[in-house]
């Protein structure tokens, strides 16, 4: 897989044939990252990366740890300077500016609250540097305290606050200067699961209300999917894909993205054109699979068919088919080898006759077991061509 990812230059722009049009950047974009390179020793942390982010957008940088997303964020904040490339904010190159000269603020992963200052002084810290008059500072601090609902805690020191309260102080402090762009480094990573969900909603609400541009770095795809308008998926210093959450899941641009975001069944094979705008892929593991809408770049001889587990249905006998639509579905047979009951849904592993394993997840829509399958049971698995995505190898 590593070889496949180091292909010469995957221009990371969202322009594939996808169900929804991509409107990543308004014109002109608020923030334009242009061919940025950052090297640490022998490691290219960020590799010729270009990206436009529009005003008022909630943008998420998603990727595994070490993919360069934090480095990119720190270059936006000014803690790292790119070796090459430009970072244009409102058309002005800020790549070489020091952090304190940029109209950009950051919320740190560990919050970095000043332990010797009270909540009020933490929030006022940036305002004092901006030489704002005292009365205005007081008003702005009060506004921020109200915004993040910290009333009554202004005099506390950070170590007298709970984790969630500290997170809100950090947010208020970085918002107080009304930055053009707010950078959030793993903003929810330090919170427990329950608090994380409610805080996600608060962050989204806040961003909508303020109309500010948020760029959040996260390794948690649920978090990115929930909050962001657009997600940039990064791997090894490059953007693999920039898309809406839905596009990312339903129309991944590469095998890597398909595997990184959510769960997926993959079948390798050779494509050949079929009638009616469809494509037939001869796979070793699952026979011929029909897929809709061949990608226009279908030049390779080796491709990969991706289908999400929830698109795969199971039944004892298979779907009832009209004679004229014999090819309307992909139909595979196998034996159930594993059943994982997860509450809302059940995940089945089906061993196909070829020996390959297919995963299917079915929603448990009824309380009583109506359509459950047990281990060793022979089943038919089927999925529609529209639910398949053909990816280049």
């Amino acid at each position, binding site marked *: 897989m590593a070889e496949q990812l180091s292909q010469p230059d995957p221009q990371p722009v969202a322009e594939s044939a996808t169900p929804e049009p991509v409107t990543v950047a308004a014109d002109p974009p608020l923030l334009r990252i242009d061919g940025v390179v950052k090297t640490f020793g022998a490691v290219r942390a960020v590799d010729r990366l270009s990206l436009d982010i529009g005003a008022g957008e909630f943008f998420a940088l998603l990727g595994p740890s070490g993919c360069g997303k934090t480095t990119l964020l720190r270059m936006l*904040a*000014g*803690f790292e300077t790119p070796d090459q490339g430009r970072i244009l904010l409102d058309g002005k190159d800020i790549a070489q500016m*020091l*952090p*304190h000269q940029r109209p*950009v*603020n*950051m919320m*740190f*992963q*560990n*919050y*970095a*609250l*000043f*332990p*010797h200052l009270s909540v009020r002084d933490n929030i006022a*810290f*940036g305002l004092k*540097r*901006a030489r704002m008059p005292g009365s205005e500072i007081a008003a702005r601090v009060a506004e921020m305290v109200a915004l993040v609902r910290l009333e009554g805690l202004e005099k506390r020191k*950070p*170590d007298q606050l709970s*984790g969630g309260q*500290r*997170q809100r102080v950090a947010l208020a*402090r*970085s918002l107080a*200067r009304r930055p053009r762009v707010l950078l959030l480094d793993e903003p929810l990573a*330090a919170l427990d699961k329950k608090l994380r969900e409610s805080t996600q909603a608060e962050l989204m609400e806040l961003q909508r209300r303020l109309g500010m541009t948020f760029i959040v770095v996260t390794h948690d795809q649920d978090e990115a999917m929930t909050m962001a308008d657009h997600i940039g998926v990064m791997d090894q210093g490059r953007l693999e894909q920039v898309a809406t959450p839905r596009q990312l899941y339903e129309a991944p641009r590469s095998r890597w993205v398909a595997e990184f975001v959510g769960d997926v069944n993959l079948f390798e094979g050779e494509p050949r054109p079929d009638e009616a705008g469809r494509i037939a892929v001869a796979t070793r593991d699952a026979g011929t699979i029909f897929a809709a809408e061949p990608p226009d770049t279908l030049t390779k001889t080796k491709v990969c068919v991706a289908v999400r587990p929830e698109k795969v249905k199971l039944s004892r006998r298979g779907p009832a088919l009209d004679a004229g639509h014999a090819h309307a579905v992909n139909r595979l047979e196998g034996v159930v080898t594993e059943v994982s009951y997860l509450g809302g849904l059940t995940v089945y592993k089906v061993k196909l006759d070829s020996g390959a394993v297919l995963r299917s997840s079915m929603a448990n829509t009824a309380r009583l077991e109506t359509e459950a399958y047990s281990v060793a049971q022979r089943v038919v698995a089927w999925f529609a061509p529209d639910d398949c995505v053909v990816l280049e190898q």
Partner: protein
Amino acid sequence: MASNLNRLSRFNLASLALGLAFLYLPIVILVIYSFNASRLVTVWGGWSLRWYTEFFNDRAMLDAAWMSCRVALASATLATLLGTLAAVGLSRGERFKGRMLFSGMLYAPLVMPEIITGLSLLLLFVALNAERGFWTVTFAHTTLTICFVAVVVQSRLGALDRSLEEAAMDLGCSPARAFAAVTLPLIVPAIAAGWMLALTLSLDDLVIASFTTGPGSETLPIRIYSEVRLGVKPEINAICTLVIGLIAMVIVVASFASKLSSTRGESAAPL
């Protein structure tokens, strides 16, 4: 801790208790005997403050004590200034030319036999034709104690969350401002502890002071040393008790400072 590992506990506790007794018993005995009315040091003649009055009437001893206090205050302050700067340079300066030499020079006096440091400084002062006395001892003690201050401050700086400085810069501080507004307040307790350490080390030093001082400007340890060589005198017990009391006071203040210093800074991290 696992219960089966607790079997060692009684042995642990006993060795700890014995160790502490070993450390404190001689000092306690000394303090008690300082209140002994008898001239014979080992015969108990009832409680008395006689030897303390004797000390306060001993002109030479008082002069030496005053000299020691002045040297300690001056050298500790100078060493704190230089040691803090050195710690900042080493912990925030990244790689620079001469860094190895610098840290080597800085930390060598920590373990260097005092007799070598003392001798080399005296030879320097002789070569410079400097008049030996208050200033030569002060500079010598400064050189000796810079490293202690630097160790204390540098370990504090190393433990400090670097993202605090980044956050300050992100919120509009230049690097120097970020240091003044965030870093400095957080390392003040360590700086204070370093100052007090330097103070007591200077008050304590005999060897280096012997080399670098001149005629007529004895420090307290030099004076005590020459008395002790002639045998035990009850007056010395009284002086030692006073010094112990003074240092105990410094320690109490210092431990408060370090308690403050350890609860701040790192605890800002949520995890």
